[in-house]
């Protein structure tokens, strides 16, 4: 799903790193990724929980999420959901927040993300109030956490579908 051009580039880059499996440290070689405040989270998204390495096939499967979404498909419902569907993309982003993979973004998890995105630029109180506001808006069933369904309905996320359909690699 990444496409022939992408595959060649990915092969070349992974040859630079190591043969066979990638480790989190290998991603450290990508300078622009080190600059990204949530760079570490993106890296850990490639690794299954508990596993220290990722093989090439799994790596490509995850990258496949980012191929442009086909909005008109003539498939019957029996086909498994393609890797680059809108839902998968949203799920990927959801898991950037939900690090313990329990299906809910807790207040603490939200705070952690805010901390990595802003770190020393805002005070702890500002962080708390931002997190508070976000949870209040998103949490519809009042369980003090944001589930995947609630995440999809959050203002901004629901409207982002046009944008993410067109991520092109």
């Amino acid at each position, binding site marked *: 799903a990444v496409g*022939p*051009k992408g595959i060649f580039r990915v092969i070349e880059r992974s040859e630079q790193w190591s043969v066979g499996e990638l480790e989190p440290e290998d991603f450290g*070689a990508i300078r622009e990724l080190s600059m990204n405040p*949530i760079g570490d989270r*993106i890296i850990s998204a490639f690794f299954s929980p508990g596993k220290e390495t990722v093989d090439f096939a799994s790596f490509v499967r995850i990258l496949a999420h980012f191929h442009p979404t086909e909005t008109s498909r003539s498939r019957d419902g029996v086909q498994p959901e393609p890797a680059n569907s809108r839902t998968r993309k949203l799920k990927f*982003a959801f898991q950037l927040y939900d690090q313990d993979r329990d299906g809910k973004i807790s207040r603490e998890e939200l705070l952690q993300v805010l901390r990595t995105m802003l770190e020393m630029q805002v005070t702890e109180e500002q962080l708390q109030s931002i997190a508070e506001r976000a949870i209040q808006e998103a949490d519809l069933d009042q369980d003090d956490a944001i589930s995947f369904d609630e995440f999809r309905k959050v203002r*901004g996320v629901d409207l982002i579908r046009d944008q993410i359909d067109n991520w092109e690699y």
Partner: protein
Amino acid sequence: AASLLSVSLRLCLGISITAWLTLLFVFIIVPAVLGVSFGIRRLYMRTLLKIFAWATSRMEMGAKEKNQQLHKPYSNGIIAKESPSSLQQELQELRGSASCPRSEPEFEMADIFYFCRRGVESILDDEVTKRFSAQELESWNLLTRSNYNFRHISLRLTVLWGLGVLIRYGILLPLRVTLAITGISLLVVLTTLVGFLPNRELRFYLSEKVHLMCFRICVRALTAIITYHNRENKPKNGGICVSNHTTPIDVIILANDGCYSMVGQVHGGLMGMMQRAMVKSSPHIWFERSEVKDRHLVAKRLSDHVADKTKQPILIFPEGTCINNTSVMMFKKGSFEIACTVYPVAIKYDPRFGDAFWNSSKFGLVNYLLRMMSSWAIVCSVWYLPPMNREEGEDAMQFANRVKAAIAAQGGLVDLIWDGGLKRAKVKDAFKEEQQKLYSKVLVGEQDEGEQSDDMHLEDENQEEDENPEDESNQDSTKGQ
């Protein structure tokens, strides 16, 4: 019969060696000494280009026949990035589709999509890391090292490639190695001899001639075909010559056309011997390892050198490391702090003939030189740019950037702000902080803006439907901090 055979063999050998040496002398050494050229190398270059074009078209035909897509590595990258926009702009776009825009920007859970996308883009292709590996080519130059497509497509092509290997390793390589040895030995011996001369003026004059001659021989040892542009801007005494850096050969390329004082660290071995010999006849600047760290010492020695107008211009590569010739990276400001004229030079290698970039993490120096000498040729262009001086109110960094932009523009290279030191070092946290700062500005706003938008706030409130006054007061207290 056996003795007859051995005698005739020895005779053959003797004759062929003599013939070869004569040819060498006539076609290479004499022109090098006199500074003339027969034009043989340019003819060679044109012939090679024709052959390469043929080879590429054969490959394309072969790929079409088999209905395969010929993999042409793109130098533009594989990601359809929109025109580069700032973090603020992209976030606005991301949020712009919201139905009721808030009066002030707030954190949105959707913001993470921006960072997520940027992150994955970096994994696939980032601007910095790709500068440190060799540039990819659109056509094939019969060297397997630069080709992903090499399969057995046609017999003719494989034969041609095989012939190429034979010629390059069997004929060109030994010839070039011989020349290189000749050039280097002459350099060492003659500069030492010249150093003994008592008369200063004679010494200067001869040293110039000797340096030029030996570098010309080295240029022929690499089969380097160089085109110099704008020679009226050549660096003059009492100045500093700066250039972009791709390979150690840059030095030879520039020294082929003018006399420079070189700057560098003292090495051991053969390099060290050459350095010691060269400095006897010409005032090159070599630093001990320990002295390199002392910035003041370095600056002082350089300043003293340029102050003396009888001394040749200094040659410096401000990037500090070899870059792959598609871009120019950050210039270190040390050389720009010295008060003198700067003569920028741009060097651009033609990648069709052989990749000149030295990837020091992949190959050692000897390995690299062997690869160079077994390539077809090294073709490059050198542009001498008009001299620049530091202007009033400009600090060293700004001056360095101005020079860098001029060099990049002339050589057709991308002008990057990144530090070449990233080749070996990790990204500093400062860059990550920069991103965080930008993002927080979008959320929280500058302190000054905060004060002003309070008023606009209240006006907008009347028009908003969902905002309630309690939330507003929360925000106010947040901003106050």
